[in-house]
């Protein structure tokens, strides 16, 4: 319908919400969002050298731009109020979701996996972030990698990453999500080790890959358990509670689409009555599984194991304790890669996963407590480590780990919208910070030590301005997006109590406040050391130079977005059901988080905790950010520069050394895990492989054959008469035997 026609009988907002393309066509074209970057990866990887640098740049950027446009259309269609999805699992249509099933991937017995893609409000936000930030970083890369010979390979990997990340967020089932999950891990490995001639960088890539595999192993096992869980649930549910037809519909959906689709899982857990309800024959979380491999455990225990295994996977991919160690080393890759993969998109996959399966998470308060506490611990721990880092990218890497910790904290206490809001704003300002860091390195002869930079404010005005805005955003200064998103998490965490773990929310909240203070401190320290003060006498170049426009433009756009992102964090919308005003993001994601909220209410896993006013929380957060930032500003602008001969006490030196080395966790892992593994491998190599297999079995067989051959060679003389003699002898023996037999 034309806009002018529409405006005659509806308001502008309502007219704009009507998608120009109908949702059915969009659903059938969802594959193209993934296929475009995939094709771009193929072309730039295979024909990159033939096409030349400019063409490869153009193709790579155009592929992502096309994907972005398609994502916008899909997003638009999802937001159309007329959009409704007829799911195979329930009779009720699902509003605000677009999905299409592209056929069976594989089927084994009752286990099926389909190529099903789905866009709802959650994945709609994600695809826009992935393709939007991805496009900006592609543009940036054209200049940043302008002198690198491996441009074809680089853009192929980067495009492939975008395709895989889109697979991850568009997938409508866990196995397909896992494809993207592994794909982004692969691209991360390839891009960290992009300059593979440098052994240290190649090792960093390998480390990331191996650590990720530990997490992926957990994720995979969790997925298998969940498939068994669904099978057991399907076998044991019956028509109790008068839901016969709905249950039948769900069974049909499971047999058509396989057990691991998100929609099917959601419908499954909605059939679980609360433990207290005592419905006759109904399957609740306390019911034991009666048959199959899970026999003897209850449904709740299995679900808890699944969620903890998912947390292991998420800890690997999203660099949480105890598997965070790969991310600081991942800074060996090109800086745009750090911005895209290790700050904005891939590392948020764990947050996305838990938001996606939030309906499972809210059933298990123990799992929620674990997720929230791991997140809180990571947030504080890595923020402290960031104090002692002198490498500009390392500071940002630890900062990323810390911010991801905030997100996990929010996810753990089921404040999904705040976690996703922080994911989005973090993608903007952290990508901007990384791109700024890349620009600083580019303009200063690849110097990364912040103590050897300084005074760049006047020499690199664009970089300075964007970096300063992003710093303010991550620090949490009031009119910027980071303030609202971080505070949304903290406020949400403080306001929610876990059933059975009432101390978790307060603990996480306090740790979160400390981490917010640390965040402000290390970010201002970084900013001051790089941009303020005088230029360090140890600088590599006398004067830094500002970067080209393809590098400045993405930074400006991202800085603008980190300001504009504030819109989503302000409570503007009054919900239809009454109650306090909701933020735009909360209102927007309520289509996705409605089911988890409803489940939490039914199962009493979450309680409304401390009622505190939003304004008080804002004031607290602001005061903390100002205190941290102010302290750092005072120390690094006034205190240290005016005392160049300052004697630092011994304990402070020791502490600083510990912090700089990340509390020696890498070394601890090296001696506690890597060394024993290496030793075990050495023993296995020497004893099993070298001795038993190679020496005893392989060479032993050869030796026996050779020896027996040598012995038997004497029989094969070639002399016909000696053969005849043997025959005669044998004949004689036979005759003698016959005679003996006859005489007997």
């Amino acid at each position, binding site marked *: 319908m034309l806009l002018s026609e529409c405006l005659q009988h509806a308001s502008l907002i309502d007219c704009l919400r009507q998608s120009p393309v109908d949702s059915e066509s969009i659903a059938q074209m969802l594959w193209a969002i993934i296929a475009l970057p995939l094709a771009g990866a193929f072309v730039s990887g295979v024909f990159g050298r033939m096409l030349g640098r400019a063409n490869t740049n153009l193709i790579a950027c155009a592929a992502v731009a096309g994907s972005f446009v398609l994502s916008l259309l899909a997003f638009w269609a999802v937001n159309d109020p007329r959009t409704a999805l007829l799911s195979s699992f329930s009779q009720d249509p699902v509003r605000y979701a677009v999905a299409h099933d592209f056929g069976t991937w594989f089927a084994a017995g009752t286990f099926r996996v389909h190529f099903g893609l789905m866009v709802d409000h959650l994945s709609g936000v994600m695809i826009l972030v992935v393709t939007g930030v991805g496009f900006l970083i592609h543009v940036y890369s054209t200049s940043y990698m302008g002198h690198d010979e491996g441009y074809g390979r680089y853009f192929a990997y980067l495009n492939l990453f975008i395709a895989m990340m889109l697979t991850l967020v568009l997938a409508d089932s866990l196995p397909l999500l896992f494809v993207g999950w592994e794909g982004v891990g692969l691209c991360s490995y390839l891009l960290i080790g992009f300059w593979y001639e440098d052994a240290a960088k190649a090792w960093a890539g390998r480390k990331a890959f191996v650590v990720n595999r530990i997490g992926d192993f957990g994720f995979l096992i969790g997925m298998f358990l969940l498939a068994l869980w669904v099978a057991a649930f399907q076998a044991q549910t019956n028509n109790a509670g008068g839901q016969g037809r709905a249950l039948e519909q769900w069974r049909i959906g499971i047999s058509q689409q396989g057990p691991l689709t998100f929609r099917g899982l959601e419908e499954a857990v909605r059939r679980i009555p609360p433990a207290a309800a005592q419905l006759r024959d109904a399957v609740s979380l306390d019911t034991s599984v009666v048959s199959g491999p899970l026999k003897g455990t209850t449904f709740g225990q299995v679900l808890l194991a699944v969620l903890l295994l998912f947390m292991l996977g998420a800890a690997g991919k999203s660099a949480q304790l105890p598997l965070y160690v790969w991310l600081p080393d991942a800074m060996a890759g090109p800086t745009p890669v750090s911005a895209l993969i290790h700050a904005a998109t891939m590392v948020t996959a764990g947050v996305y996963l838990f938001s996606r399966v939030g309906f499972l998470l809210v059933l298990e308060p123990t799992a929620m407590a674990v997720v929230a506490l791991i997140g809180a611990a990571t947030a504080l721990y890595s923020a402290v480590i960031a104090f002692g880092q002198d490498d500009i990218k390392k500071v940002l890497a630890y900062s990323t780990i810390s911010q991801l910790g905030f997100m996990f904290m929010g996810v753990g206490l089921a404040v999904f919208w705040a976690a996703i809001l922080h994911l989005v704003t973090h993608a903007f300002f952290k990508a901007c910070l990384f791109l700024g860091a890349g620009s600083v390195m580019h303009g200063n002869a690849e110097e990364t030590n912040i103590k050897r930079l300084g005074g760049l404010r006047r020499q690199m005005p664009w970089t300075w301005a964007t970096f300063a805005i992003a710093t303010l955003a991550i620090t949490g200064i009031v009119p910027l997006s980071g303030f609202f998103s971080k505070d949304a998490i903290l406020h949400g965490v403080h306001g929610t109590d876990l059933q059975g773990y009432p101390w978790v929310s307060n603990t996480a909240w306090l740790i979160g406040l400390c981490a917010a203070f640390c965040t402000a401190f290390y970010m201002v320290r970084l900013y001051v050391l790089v941009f303020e003060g005088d230029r360090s006498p140890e600088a590599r170049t006398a004067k830094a130079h500002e970067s080209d426009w393809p590098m400045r433009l993405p930074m400006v756009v991202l800085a603008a977005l980190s300001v504009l992102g504030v819109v989503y964090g302000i409570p503007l919308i009054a919900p239809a059901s009454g109650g306090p005003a909701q933020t735009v993001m909360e209102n927007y994601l309520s289509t996705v988080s409605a089911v988890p909220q409803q489940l939490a209410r039914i199962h009493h896993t979450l309680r409304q905790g401390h009622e505190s006013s939003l304004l008080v929380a804002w004031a607290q957060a602001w005061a903390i950010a100002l205190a941290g930032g102010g302290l750092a500003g005072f120390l690094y602008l006034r205190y240290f520069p005016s005392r160049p001969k300052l004697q630092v006490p011994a304990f402070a030196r020791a502490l600083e050394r510990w912090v700089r080395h990340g509390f020696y966790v890498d070394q601890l892992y090296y001696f506690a895990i890597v060394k024993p593994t290496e030793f075990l491998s050495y023993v296995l190599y020497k004893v099993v492989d070298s001795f038993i297999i190679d020496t005893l079995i392989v060479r032993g067989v050869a030796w026996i054959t050779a020896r027996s051959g040598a012995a038997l060679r004497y029989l094969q*003389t*070639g*002399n*016909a*008469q000696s053969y*005849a*003699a043997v025959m*005669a002898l044998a004949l004689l023996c036979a005759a003698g035997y016959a005679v003996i037999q006859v005489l007997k």
Partner: protein
Amino acid sequence: MVPINNYLFLAALLFCVGMFGVMVRRNALVVFMCVELMLNAANLTFLAFARQRGDSVGHVSAFFVIAVAAAEAAIGLAIMIAVFRSRGTLNIEEIKTMKH
């Protein structure tokens, strides 16, 4: 009537002479003749038993052996001529390899 034992002793003697020749003579042609001698010893045994039992199965076997001996003679002599042509000798101790 000559008792059957005499025939059998004669056949055994012939067989042993033949076998002895096969094992000790160097000339392949003589070895070959010794093999014929062994075959004929076997024939004699067949015929002796056939005579004793009064049936004709032994005769049939003897004819088979004669036919086989004829075929063997034809092929064996051909092989020997070929060997002699290629190696210039029929000394069996020198003919140890299949290839020359």
